[in-house]
């Protein structure tokens, strides 16, 4: 009996190993192809948009036509498009994203400066929102229709449908002088880790609160509905029949199975974390990547637009890839398929 079984047991394992490799290779390959498309698209997309960078830079400045031509040459805009494209590709291969027309600084430096604040704001908000949303979702779903469920779902949906910009302004207004109105750090803050960190957190509080209030509903709803789908499953009856406490049935049996769609959502959102939350960053003048992209669009800053586009799209690609790979780890069904 054991002899007859063992080859069957061994065989799928070996196949699974090869399958994993193929699975990973396919996913990574797909991501790479997408990245190449992003790079090409990033160049041509923004050149189709209306607006002449040189005119935008010199808007309202007293310049003569000779100066405009000189500026065009300086920025390399008078070269034919294919030459500009090759220069852009060459730069990319050397890790050079070019120089911003507007800030007159290397694009890479500008982006790196903004990654920190964005990760801090959107990352913190996502973690808090996910934790809060999942917790409330589990609570509400487990006792569907209870007063708690109705209240929490109602509030979450209300906040979800509130315009971010408006909510931010309202918070800014009603909190009076409790929180600062702009930026990430006050230049008057004394140096030293503690005061700087406290000032940073002080600046972070309102934008983070706004963002959490707006986004936690999606985690709550997904968690709640996927828990509801599990509610009538036979294995829960079995678990209860074993005499497990209701609390344990929920925690050990229902939640792990209901968690899958939420994981996808979290990773998809983590990809978006980098792109920031343009509206929140704008209300609170938070110097993040979203704000930088917005400025780049407004000022037709082509190198900066390309740079931010690649970084933002790249982040989504990477996170999707991670989600795909992780899915295989946490969901045995994907492995089998």
């Amino acid at each position, binding site marked *: 009996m054991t002899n007859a079984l063992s080859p069957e047991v061994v065989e799928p394992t070996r196949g699974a190993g090869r399958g994993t490799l193929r699975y990973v290779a396919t996913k990574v390959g797909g991501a790479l192809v997408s990245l190449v498309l992003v790079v090409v698209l990033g160049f041509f997309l923004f050149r189709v948009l209306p607006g002449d960078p040189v005119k935008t830079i010199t808007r309202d400045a007293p310049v003569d036509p000779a100066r405009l031509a000189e500026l065009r040459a300086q920025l390399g805009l008078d070269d034919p498009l294919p030459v500009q494209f090759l220069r852009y590709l060459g730069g990319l291969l050397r890790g050079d994203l070019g120089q911003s027309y507007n800030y007159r600084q290397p694009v890479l430096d500008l982006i790196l400066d903004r990654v920190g604040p964005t990760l801090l704001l959107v990352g913190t908000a996502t973690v808090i929102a996910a934790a809060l949303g999942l917790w409330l979702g589990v609570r509400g779903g487990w006792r569907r229709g209870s007063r708690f469920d109705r209240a929490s779902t109602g509030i979450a949906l209300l906040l979800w449908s509130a315009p971010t910009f408006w909510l931010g302004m309202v918070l800014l207004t009603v909190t009076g002088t409790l929180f600062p109105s702009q930026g990430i750090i006050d230049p008057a803050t004394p140096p030293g880790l503690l005061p700087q960190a406290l000032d940073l957190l002080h600046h972070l509080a309102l934008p983070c609160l706004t963002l959490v209030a707006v986004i936690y509903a999606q985690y709550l709803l997904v968690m709640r509905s996927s828990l509801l789908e599990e509610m009538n499953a036979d294995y829960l009856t079995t678990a209860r029949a074993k005499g497990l406490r209701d609390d344990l049935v929920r925690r050990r049996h229902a939640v792990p199975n209901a968690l899958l769609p939420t994981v996808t959502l979290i990773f998809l959102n983590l990809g978006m974390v980098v792109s920031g939350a343009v509206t929140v*960053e704008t209300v609170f003048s938070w110097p993040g990547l979203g704000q930088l992209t917005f400025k780049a669009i407004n000022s037709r800053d082509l190198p900066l637009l390309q740079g931010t586009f690649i970084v933002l799209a790249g982040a989504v690609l990477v996170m999707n890839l991670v989600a795909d790979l992780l899915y295989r780890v946490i969901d045995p069904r994907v492995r089998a398929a």
Partner: protein
Amino acid sequence: MRMRRIGVCLAVAACAALGTPAVTGVGAPQAHAADSKVLRVAVTTAVASLNPFLAYHQADTEIGRMMYEFLTAYDQTDQHPVPGLAESWQVGTDKLTWTFKIRQGMKWSDDKPITAKDVAFTYNLMLTNAVARTANGNFVSNFDTVTAPDDTTLVVRTKQPQATMLALDVPIVPEHVWASKVDKLVNYTNLDFPVVGSGPFTLVDYKPDQYVKLKANPNFWRGKATVDEVDFYHYDNTDAAAQALIKGDVDLVSKLTAAQFDTLKGKDGITTNKAVGRRFNDLIINPGAQTNTRQPIGDGNPALRDVKLRQAIAQAIDAKTLVDKSYGGYAEPGSSYIPPVFSKWSTNQQRTFDLAAANRTLDEAGYRKGPDGKRLDKEGKPLTLRLIGDSGQPTDNPNGQYLKSWLGQLGIPVDVQLVSGDKLGDVTTAGNYDLSFSTWGVNPDPDAVLTLQTCAALPDAEGKSGTTETFTCDEQYDQLYKAQLSELDEGKRVQEVKQAQQRLAELATSVTFAYPDQLEAYRSDRFSSFAVQPNPGGVITGQNGYWGYYKAVPAAAGTSSGVTPTGLVIGIVVAVVVVAGVVLLVVSRRRKSTADERE
């Protein structure tokens, strides 16, 4: 259970951490204000580059003016040229040689002497280095040679006589700092703090899109500023900036909308300033767009090449109604090309709104009405016009609707389209418009806006690099323009500038209808007054100079509410810890009790 409890603890700790510093922040600005006089200004336009050779944007150049003195400055009262680094000047009989006397004893902020050699270095750098010409190149394009025979004498020889020699808006940089930067000028951000300068303030810190920090320069030749520090705080939206003024986070806000201005009016501790603007809003009428090789471009309605039709349109614009309705009264009705704030140069002529006269003009010019009451062009086809505006400009839509109604009464249907500012720029540059809204800021010297209407401003054969506002190209106007540029007798030049504007009004390619007010507000409990330019009625921010910041007068009485940050911090920390403890207790209690119930 233990894992869960740890989670709750962490969450509470995070909340506490987010909450506590609230107090340090409240204390910080006020404590900061108590020991030194700091002016905090909200800036809502982006500061992009502080390298004076590359800085174009209004916020950049405004800060540049605070860091670097020019050869000459503009008077606070009426904006006429006054001494800057140069204390006096004279022009030779050849009308080409300008000799500037540089004031003795002036020092850079690093205590090195400011001499004529620094000025010569700056101008010569711009003459020899294309990058150095990026932002201010047009000021030196007529320079032949610049020399400094000694430390107090600067001699500039121009190619042609140039009337604008006292309006050279070029920041003068220290040679001893910049000589080594010449090769990498295009990549130089000029952020080696403190940045050596000659203006009333010294740049000491800057974080892009966050803040700019300037300290008073004790070496400034006019004497140290009345405030110790000016901090510019960047705001991405003006609503938040207005809110920050109410909260007391900033002391001065500019570029307010009418709605924000009305909200701030009458608020405790806040004074509003409705200042005359130096910007005109005009309707541009496509007279037949063309390149500088006289090749027609664009798809403008050919009927508009007829000056009579353009004049009739100009007669049908009621500037008074537009100002009252579209601008909520926060503008002056416009007519002359140069705003009346520059009373010396402005013609101050009034255009009369007269639909009957406009109809007569059209009848006489041969634009018959069809059976439906609509005008026909000279080829007998129905005459309709497109009017393109900027969807980002709140006034463009109402202005467009009024114009549509007035021109409709002339029998000319108008199709109003609003597009993005960038799209509008593309459309007007390519000449693909009939009518459009446009706007320009005017400097104390009128030359820059006058060039916009010359044939030389037309785009090149590829349709690029044009600076024309309206595609105007008129021989008579060009002659007047050239005459005023080389006229060194100011009285005569004023006449020529006025004649040029009159010619422009006759051509009716640009119809000015409004000069929007600049709306500002400040904390009068912290600053009792500011120097406005022009005085009275002028602006605090965005001046042709640094007077607003340089002469800001802090309020006499102590205004800080005397919060002691450290004590409060400790108090709040304790409070939060207590609250956190209680919450923790309640949560664990409840959990235990429900668990018990179920078991």
